Structure formats: C-alpha cells, structure tokens
C-alpha cells in the first residue's frame, strides 16, 4: 500500500513547485479583546491569497495588509485616523500606496473575503485594524517566505537517549526510583524502540533536547498505548496515564524562549498494542514528529481554549479575577469594570497597582494545566501605579515615604496595614476595604464618562478613597503616584504616562512623588482621583 502511493507523492509535490502557490487564510477577531486570533501567517512570494476576516467581536473592525514595515502598521493606522469624519464612509482605508489589500468595515458578526496577490519580495508585511485606537493591539504580520504557505519541518531531538525498565504497571511508575535494565542513545534521535525480546510489561524513559530559535507558542501532541507522560524543562505538560488505546492524543501549548529545552518522555506498555507518538509545532514550523512513527489522520484542530485563551468578558457587571497578576503580585485582585476600564488591587500593600483599558484578563494561564506563573492584563494602555503602601504618616512634609516592603512572601508585610476584603454593589463593582493604624479606608473605582478630543474616544476611571478615623492623625498623606514621569500639572491635572493624565485636585508634587494631604472633617476624609486616557 505504502509503496504504490510513493510515486504519486513525488509527482504531486513536483507539480506544486511549478504552479502558483495558493493560500487560504481565515482570521477572526476575538470578542472583547481588541485582537485578531492570528498574529502571524506565512505565504509564498507571489501567492494568490484568499483572506477571510470573521468579526466575532461586538464592535466593527477592518483589516488592512500593508507594505513592509516594522511598526505593526501603526503609521498607516494613524493616517487612517486622520481621515476624521470621512473615515467612516471610507471604511477607514486611506488612499495610500502603503495599502496592499483591505477589507471594508465589517459589522459585528459579519465577514468578508478578499483575494490578493502576495508581494514577490520576501519580507514582513504587517496587517492592522485601522479603526481609531484599535491598531495598538489589533495587528499581525504576513510573512512572505520562499517555500511559504506551508510550514516546513521543525527541529528534531538532540542527544536523545532511552532507559528500558521491566515491570507490570497499570499507571506510570516513577522511573527515577527504578533501575533500568539497559540504556543507550536513540537511533537517529527518534523516539521509538525495537525490543524483540519485550512486547509487554516494559517501560521506557526517553530524554533529549529541543532547540528553540524563536520565542513563541509551541504545541506538543502526545498519544500513547499505554500510558505516557511528557515533561518539558521539568514540569509535566502532558499526561496520558493508564491503560488505553492511543486515540487522537492530547495537546498542550507552551510559551518557550529561545534556547535548549529538555524533554523527558515516560512511557509504559502493559499488554496488547504498543504505540507512542509525540510531535511539536511552533510559530515557524509545522507539526514535526519526534517519534519514529507519525500519528496519521488525527485531527489537527486544537481545543479552542488553548488557541484563543480564556478571555474574561466584562458586560454589565464587574468581573473579579483574584490570582497571581504580573505587575501586582501574588495577592492580586483584578477588576474588570463595565465601561471598558480595569484595575488591579494588591491585597498585600492595600493599593491599586495597575489600571488599563480594553480587554480585562485572559485566564488561560491559570485555568489550564497547572496554572504556572503570573498573568498580566489583556487590554492596552496599561498604567503602572505604585507598588507601595497608599498611606503614610510623615513626621515632616519632607520626610521620606516608607520604602516598599522587600520580602512579602516571607512576611515583611507593611506595618499598620490590614486588608479587610471588599463589598460588591448591585453592578458587582467592589469597594476594597482596609485599615491603616486605626483609619478605616474604602477604595472604589468605576468607569467615568470620557472627554472626547479630535474625534478620538478616550476613557477615564474615577477612584474614590474614603477614610474614617476616630482620632485625628497629623501628617497623614496619600501617595497618588510616584516616579520620574510625573510632571507639574495645571488645574489639578498631572501628566502621567504618554497619553494618560491623572486628575488629583489638591495633590502636591514633591520631587518624584505626588502626595495628597489627608485632612479629616468630622472624622472622615475623601480623596477623588481620575485616570484619564486622552485618546
């Protein structure tokens, strides 16, 4: 059977080499994430590209493929934004030689197919949504590569070795505790075995290295009969334990940095069929088998969650996500607020550490596999605020702010602070509560109406800090912000980051700190702040 097919394969691949290459590309917009689901695709020079954009979002989007550039299409997008009032009717497509191909404005849940010829010159051609404000996050790149359109094979294992164990198991044993019967290098660095003497009741530990050249998401697929477990750089990423047929396998996608990755694949065979398949694919190569044999006719489609992530969508009610948050800490509480703004509170320092616009959080990191690591915001225009305590009693107006606690995991918790929790209103918006040396504090954020300038829509978040104290506290200050970026403001509005300002009436700029003196009246005090994204 295989022999008779072989000449055909040779023939057909030869034919393809002479024909114009074709590429069918489908790109979707991700709901509430201001993102395309595909950030990169590869086509051959001069290929006929059929590109379908499916808009799964609740707002309109387009897609423009541009000439070669290293700016993710931002310059072209800015040209589009300059169309101003005319933009809408022109589908935000400027008359500009940089435009290679473009879809029209696609309404929510609509789609459009465009056909164009890829440039003959290999290179990186960005594509971007040119709706005002979208381009920053909503972009990708078309890679024109010789031999492109179909991804080639990736690297194989290096330094592949095996250890053979004998035993009768129903589940994978810990081979580390067992003595191998024999061990040695793998033939051609391919995972497999040829033990004429052992057909049943054996186990093998395979080890080797994989070289990653480019940082990105790599997908591993494992199928086995009977059990197998794949460890990558230590942790288990795929398990198919127990006694079972191979099926279509399980996949896991991991983000890898360039360099050597260590692979350990444990496998055991009880009785009956004995099969083992392992592959990997990456941003610049297709599914590449690391085993001697390939798993044929298996569906290539991944689980949707591992591909698109698990975006937490904020609608009419606030969404809370308490987890390890990048830029916040191990006791982070992120809040997605109705109105398109978000904040993350640090329950250890009792302060807001981040505010941002757009999409809230992607829970994929923590809600799949073992949930390793810290996850940052999914949206854009992230403003990093203090990672220190919000309140301090200063002995003099020029006394130094207490240094940020150094070793929180070991208990260097800020003196005088106690996180109290939060209450939710009817919209699910939290009011955080904490105490500081007898002062009861509430901290609440909500989306505020944004001012509009030059036709670009901005955003704003209002933050109200309410304090109560039985006794008067002299020298109590609230630190609104800190760092080199803060500049002298006008009318209580201070420039913070590029395109972001902070409204803090009554705040005093003290070097690189913006401080608000807290004065109690009838035992209460109130601080109002606004974070304003100008466009």
């Amino acid at each position, binding site marked *: 059977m295989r022999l008779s097919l072989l000449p055909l394969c040779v023939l057909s691949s030869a034919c393809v080499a002479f024909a114009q290459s074709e590429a069918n590309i489908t790109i979707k917009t991700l709901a509430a994430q201001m993102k395309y689901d595909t950030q990169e695709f590869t086509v051959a020079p001069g290929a006929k590209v059929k590109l379908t954009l499916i808009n799964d979002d609740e707002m309109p989007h387009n897609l423009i493929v541009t000439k070669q550039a290293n700016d993710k299409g931002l310059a072209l997008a800015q040209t589009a934004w300059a169309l101003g009032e005319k933009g809408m009717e022109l589908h935000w497509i400027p008359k500009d030689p940089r435009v290679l191909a473009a879809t029209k404005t696609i309404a929510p849940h609509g789609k459009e197919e465009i056909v164009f010829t890829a440039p003959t010159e290999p290179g990186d051609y960005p594509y971007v949504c040119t709706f005002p404000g979208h381009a920053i996050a909503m972009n990708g790149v078309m890679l024109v590569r010789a031999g492109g359109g179909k991804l080639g094979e990736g690297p194989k294992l290096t330094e592949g070795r095996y250890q053979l164990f004998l035993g009768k198991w129903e*589940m994978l044993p810990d081979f580390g505790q067992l003595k191998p019967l024999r061990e040695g290098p793998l033939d051609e660095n391919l995972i497999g075995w040829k033990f004429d003497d052992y057909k049943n009741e054996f186990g093998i530990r395979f080890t080797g290295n994989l070289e990653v050249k480019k940082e990105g998401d790599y997908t591993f697929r494992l199928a086995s009969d009977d059990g197998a477990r794949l460890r990558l750089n230590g942790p288990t990423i795929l398990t198919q334990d127990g006694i079972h047929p191979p099926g279509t396998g399980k996949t896991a996608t991991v983000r890898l940095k360039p360099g050597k990755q260590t692979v350990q694949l444990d496998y055991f065979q009880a009785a009956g069929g004995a099969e083992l398949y392992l592959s990997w694919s990456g941003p610049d190569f297709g599914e590449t088998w690391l085993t001697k044999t390939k798993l044929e006719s298996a569906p290539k489609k991944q689980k949707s969650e591992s591909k698109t992530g698990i975006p937490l969508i904020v609608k009419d009610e606030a969404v809370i996500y308490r987890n390890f948050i990048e830029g916040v800490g191990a006791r982070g509480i992120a809040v997605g607020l109705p109105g398109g703004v978000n904040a993350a509170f640090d329950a250890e320092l009792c302060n807001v550490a981040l505010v941002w616009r757009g999409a809230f959080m992607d829970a994929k990191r923590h809600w799949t596999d073992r949930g390793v690591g810290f996850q940052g915001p999914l949206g854009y225009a992230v403003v990093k605020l203090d990672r220190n305590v919000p309140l301090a009693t200063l002995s003099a107006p020029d006394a130094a702010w207490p240094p940020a606690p150094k070793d*929180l995991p*070991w208990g260097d918790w800020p003196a005088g602070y106690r996180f109290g929790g939060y*209450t939710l209103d009817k919209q699910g918006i939290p009011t955080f509560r904490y105490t500081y040396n007898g002062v009861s504090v509430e901290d609440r954020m909500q989306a505020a109406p944004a001012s509009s300038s030059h036709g670009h829509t901005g955003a704003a978040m209002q933050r109200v800090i309410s304090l109560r104290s039985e006794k008067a506290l002299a020298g109590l200050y609230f630190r609104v912000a800190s760092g080199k970026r803060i500049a002298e403001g006008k009318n209580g509005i201070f420039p913070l980051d590029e395109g972001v300002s902070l409204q803090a009436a009554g705040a005093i700029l003290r070097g690189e700190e913006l401080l608000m003196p807290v004065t109690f009246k009838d035992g209460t005090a109130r601080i109002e702040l606004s974070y304003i994204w100008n466009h």
Partner: protein
Amino acid sequence: MHRITLSIAAASALFAAKGHAQKASSADIIKAEREFYTVSAVPMPPGEVLEVSGLEWLPGGKLAVSTRRGEIWVASNPASEAPEWKRFAHGLHEPLGISFHDGWLWATQRPEVTRMKDTDGDGKADVFENVAAPWGINGDYHEYAFGARSPKDGSIWNVLCLTGSGGANSLFRGFVIRVFPDGKSEAVASGVRSPGGIGFAPDGEAFYTDNQGLWNGSSSLKHLKVGSFQGNPTGFKTFDEAAKRGISMGVVAKKPATPKSGSRIDTERANVEEFVPPAVVLPHGILGHSPTGMCYDLTGKFGPFKGQLFVGEQTFSNVQRVFLEKVNGVYQGAVFHFLSGFGSGNIAVLMTPDGVLYTGGSDRGWGAKGGKPFALERAVWNGKAAFEIHEMRAKPDGFELTFTQPVDPKTAADPASYSADAWTYIYQSGYGSPEVDKVKPVIVSATVGADGKSVRLKLDKLTKGHVHAIGAEGVKSTDGNGLLHAKGYYTLNEIPN
C-alpha cells in the same frame, strides 16, 4: 438475587488474585461495587466549567460547590434530575475548602481565609471579608492551601503546601495554621509536604492527606496533633524567617530535630520528639497516587460503615474507606478499596446528613483515570450491605477482622483463606520509595468469634512500623459470597500490649 450473587462471586474471584495488580478487572470491580452503591453524575450548569475543589452542605438541603477557577455555585436541589444552579461568588483565588457557619460561607483561598455573605438576598455574595492571611505566598502554583472547619470551635484549619515539590520560599509553607472566627491565628503543626485535603474526626481531631514525594515514601493519611511534626523538614526555613521578624510560632515554637534521610519512620520517631507517624499509609500505586479530601459517615445511612472515614483519590478516580483506632495513644488503622470508576480526579468529598456521599474534582495538571476534565457525582447506598471487611484491629499477636456479614465458619477458620504481607518505605529526602524490608508473616491460626462476624488472626510475627496487607480471599459469608474487596492495609505504628 441469584444473578447478583453470581456476578459478585465472579468479581470476587478476580480480586482474590494475589499481588497488587488488578489488571483488566477494573470494569468488573466497578460493576460489582455498583450493586451496592449507585453512582450518578450531578447535572452541572450547562456550558460552565466546574472543577470541583470544595463541597459544603447548606441549610435547606442545598449543595455549595467551590471550583479551582474561583467560583462558588449553589445547587438548590442537587439530587434532582435538573438541579437549579446559581453562582454565589466568583473571582476567588482557587478556593480549596469551603464551610458554612454562623450565616457565612468560609473559604480557604490561596492567600487567605475569607468569609462571604449574601446580604441583599439575591443569591449572590456581596460581602467578602478577609478573616486572616497569616501565611506567605510568592506566586508559585504549587503553594496550595486546603482548609476545613473544626467542629469544636469553628476555627478553619489550613494545611499549606510547600513551594514547588521540595522547596519552602514563603512563610509557613509546610505548616498547618488554624484561623479562629475572630481572625486570630496560630500554627499548629509542621512537616507537611503536598496536602490533598483536610478533615475532622468525630472526636474533633484533624487529619489530612499528604502525597507521595520527598520524605513521603507513600501517600498517607496523617493525624494533625497540635504541636506535631508531620515528617517533611523542608518547611523548617520558616522557623528562622519568623524569628527574624518576630512572628509568633505558638505551639510549634520549638523546631523539631531534623530527621535522618534514608532511615525509616519508625526509627526516626524515636529521634524526633514531635514526629507523629502517618496514621494510615495509603500504599502508593495500590490504593492510588494522590489522596485528597475526606469525610466521615456519622449517619449510618451510607452502608454499615458508621464512624468510618472516606478518602478521595485524584489520580485513580476512587474513594477509599478507612478504619481508624488509637493504640498506645497513636492513631492507626486500615484502608480498603471502596468505590472506583468516578468521572474525574476526586478532590472534595462530602457526606450529607442523609448519608449521601458527594465527590467531585478535576484532572487538570496531573491527570486522572476517570478521563473527564471535571466531574461532580453522588454515591447512594442501595440498602444492601456488601460482604466486606468491616474493621481491622491490631492485637498483640495479630489482627481482629470483623465482617459486615456473618462468616462461613469453615472458610473463616481456615488459615489458608488468608494472606499476609508486610513492608515499609524508605524515609528519605528523595522522591517516594519502593516497598522495602518486606516480610511474609504466616497466619498461625484463625478463630471465628462468638458473634459469628469476627475472626481473630494470629500471625507468627508483627513488624512495628510496617504496613500489613491482610487478605481474606478465601473467606465466604454464610450466604456463600466472597468478599467484594478482600484486602485491608493496616499501618502498624504501635503494637498493642
């Protein structure tokens, strides 16, 4: 009736096979077990992912379910074909243990003990209070915290996993801390490795499960005696770090002596004063790989096992049964296979006041035999008692087995109807251990008691500290049935006088 008898006899013959492997018979085992217990899936809210991490029975017959994704769902009629689900809370940090007390729902989240309440009656919690956050976390996924409420004083006992498999990079990793309702807290035990669940005995004593790994030759059920050391010294770093910062160590203030790696638990018990040995070893690979939550049956409505403990198992998707006794002041006892074939990796186990066992969990990160990514199931006793070893008690020269049904005097009095094996594990800083120091005790005599339901086994020798696997493969009930599960695994920390 005839059909049932036959199928049990057939299955029993399969289990009676010597050795640990029960290969190819797992479907038969499940089938035989289901003659006595109906296991059914609880319909979950459609489209939602409920990786069950905690279970609690609420007033009015409602079931509260916490999930690894940080939600709490309440089913107002969990036994019906279409339970009515309502999401009570979301956004929690992987709560592993919930309890209802004093009008609040209490949860152990990774960073703290929280209590929450619905104050406006819309079925959703709107107040979330930090009761206490006395331990450190650094963002390592392995720093799990499991909690359970003491029936004695309402304190929440939190058993805190190490950082990673073998490190301690945050305060109180590897310790147990109880948090009182007023927010005061204190450390009560050290030496924890990787817990899977915690629970309380009817007498108010706390127990937890710890997973095979560093300093754990096998997984086991451990007694959390106040002031005890549980065997893994990795967390000792907290003694120095707490001292630097003036953080109180309370009843565990005295750092235990460091045990010697490569030794045996029974040996090191003598060297480490605070060391409480595992009450019941859950032999790794035989009973499971990853024990989790637990519950007692105090109702007597879940079969003839009133007062016994049921322990969840994640990897094998099982629930095991444990009989405990106290000998020379130390808890010990036997574990038995009980129910297998659950849908996913069991994490939480709950007994309702009506004697229905709920269990659920997920296979995320480690895999489970059940095959489903998450599941919630209930087991209901059919009212018919399986022929099982009911209790296994240590005696100065052997064991006393009681059975759930009268035994056939002929087979029960024949020593050849029984098997005995004994072994222990290396107590070491490395990962796990093979079964070592194997002993083959000889059954010298088997004497049926006057009650007709118990048998006194005399062994030629008992080995202190060893797991004693005692099988009664040849014993028949007076009805002629073989045992549903023929073996018990008894951890002989102490030999009674």
